[in-house]
């Protein structure tokens, strides 16, 4: 019964007896101000029946709600605390992986003057600045400064994103491989998974890499019967066999809305039927901060990694770019996004001029990726809700 303090109760003083979850323990000495019936943290030293204990007296009933929250077990008999210990091991292995590969671990500020102007992003404000939805701008400034390959494990904040797979505050692993292309970056994602799989006792639901690469256009053809993913909204919906909402011929849907409607309704449910997959070559309008593929400028050098979700369907794990190096092009894309935000009544955020300046000065060729660590842990642990792998979900604060 040696070990960390645990909840217990003094049964009697003659001889001193106490009980904890493991049953009755006999104690040779206990502090005088503890009375029979008192609850407390039992801190025992010694062995067998000759234990001595100090008891940190607490109010009854004890253990309380906090203890129960961490120790309550799921249907598989595993507690939240067990999930947090598992999470700790995964995080340690991830750091080890990048450290052994010569990456520099960096920490960039969480409160930033610009959250970026991506169209579907809503930022949480922090005084007159914002909580960072992604460390991308600051990490790229470090790249422009010649930091070399870098990684970061940090919090990212996105407003209005709550659900079984989203928490407005989540943990992101972001890394940049200087000199690497996205083919090499995908191989590095696989190497990371292999590294952790080989060192973790909890079996991973992911089969060992490699995983297939599927261009977006091929996914549209295979799962939705769409021959051209760039076709106008009504064509996309009709080919995918989806109804056009409302009275307008295009349902009032933009191309992008129709694209994602097909994606959500037809592709996502089947994308991971045969296991994890890298979905590559996203349409150029979704390039975001990625470059276009030189041989085919209709598509962006962007990929996402999807894995089968514990409850069925798929889970989006990571988003990677062959990074756009052209500062002027990045500025004009940002201005377009800003115009979209204005037209759609979304909050207008300032451009990050220092980031754009850094790009203009010149960033080395680099591929970068953001990976949702909570999701990876959730997937591996077999949890169907993200809260199972967080210390506290929003509604537990």
């Amino acid at each position, binding site marked *: 019964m040696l070990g960390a303090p645990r909840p217990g109760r003094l049964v009697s003083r003659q001889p001193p007896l106490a009980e904890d979850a493991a049953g009755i323990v006999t104690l040779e000495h206990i502090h005088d101000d503890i009375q029979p019936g008192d609850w407390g943290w039992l801190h025992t030293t010694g062995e067998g029946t000759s234990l001595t204990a100090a008891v940190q007296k607490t109010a009854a009933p004890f253990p309380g709600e906090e203890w129960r929250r961490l120790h309550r077990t799921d249907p598989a008999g595993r507690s939240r605390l067990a999930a947090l210990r598992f999470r700790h091991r995964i995080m340690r292995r991830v750091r080890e992986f990048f450290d052994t590969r010569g990456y520099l671990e960096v920490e960039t500020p969480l409160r930033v003057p610009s959250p970026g102007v991506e169209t579907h992003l809503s930022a949480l404000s922090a005084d007159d600045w914002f909580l960072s939805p992604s460390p991308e701008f600051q990490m790229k400034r470090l790249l422009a400064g010649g930091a070399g390959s870098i990684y970061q494990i940090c919090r990212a904040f996105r407003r*209005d994103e709550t659900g079984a797979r989203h928490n407005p505050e989540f943990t992101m692993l972001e890394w940049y491989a200087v000199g690497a292309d996205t083919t090499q970056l995908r191989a590095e994602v696989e190497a990371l998974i292999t590294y952790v799989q080989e060192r973790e006792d909890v079996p991973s639901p992911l089969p060992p890499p490699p995983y297939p690469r599927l261009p977006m256009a091929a996914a549209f053809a295979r799962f939705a019967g769409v021959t051209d993913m760039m076709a106008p909204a009504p064509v996309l919906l009709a080919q995918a066999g989806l109804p056009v909402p409302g009275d307008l011929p295009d349902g009032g849907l933009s191309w992008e*809305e129709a694209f*994602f*409607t097909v*994606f959500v309704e037809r592709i996502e449910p089947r994308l991971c039927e045969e296991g994890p997959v890298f979905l590559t070559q996203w349409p150029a309008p979704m390039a975001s901060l990625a470059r276009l593929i030189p041989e085919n400028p209709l598509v962006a050098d962007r990929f*996402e990694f999807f894995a089968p979700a514990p409850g069925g369907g798929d889970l989006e794990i990571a988003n990677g770019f062959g990074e756009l190096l052209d500062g002027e092009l990045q500025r004009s894309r940002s201005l377009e996004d800003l115009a979209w935000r204005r037209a759609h009544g979304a909050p207008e955020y300032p451009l990050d001029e220092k980031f754009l300046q850094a790009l203009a000065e010149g960033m080395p060729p680099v591929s970068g990726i953001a990976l949702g660590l909570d999701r990876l842990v959730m997937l591996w642990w077999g949890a169907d809700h993200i809260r199972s792998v967080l210390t506290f979900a929003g509604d537990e604060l």
Partner: protein
Amino acid sequence: MASTSDLKKNLKILVDGDPYTVVEAQFVKPGKGTAFTKCRIKNLITGSVLERTWRSNESIELANTENRKMEFLYSEGEHFVFMDRETYEQFHVEAEVLGDDSRWLIDNLVTDVLFFNEKPVGVEFPTFVEMQIVHCEPGVRGDTATGASKPATLITGATVQVPLFVNEGEWLKIDTRTGEYVERVKK
């Protein structure tokens, strides 16, 4: 009107003119693009379950539904008459709303009646009801093990299968979900 961020389990919504309850709602936002809420919804009248996805900029129409505790009074032609236990208001519920379940309607039974646009559209029975047997073959003593059964007619005219030891005039506990005998009860 509500927004997709209101789509949570048990929200009552209007879809294609019918009232539905949300069984499951999942927020998805693939590829940092348009956000969606994928739902499983259950038709409150027919009980059928559908999958439906909404874009985050779509608005959701709420269903004007209400659950009221009501007591069954009597039947009248094609209608059953219920009374609100709080307001003493009486309502006629059409026989087709109850369907087969009308066989569990004993006098003064308290049920949850679902109103949609102020009209009763569904009646939820208690899981268990207690009813008296008006007719069955005489009981066979001691036969509790074979699992053999016989039909028994209850006070409402409903028929259930009961074990052989059960007698006419006895009271039974019935599971309204399955229509099966649970046990005898003393009255």
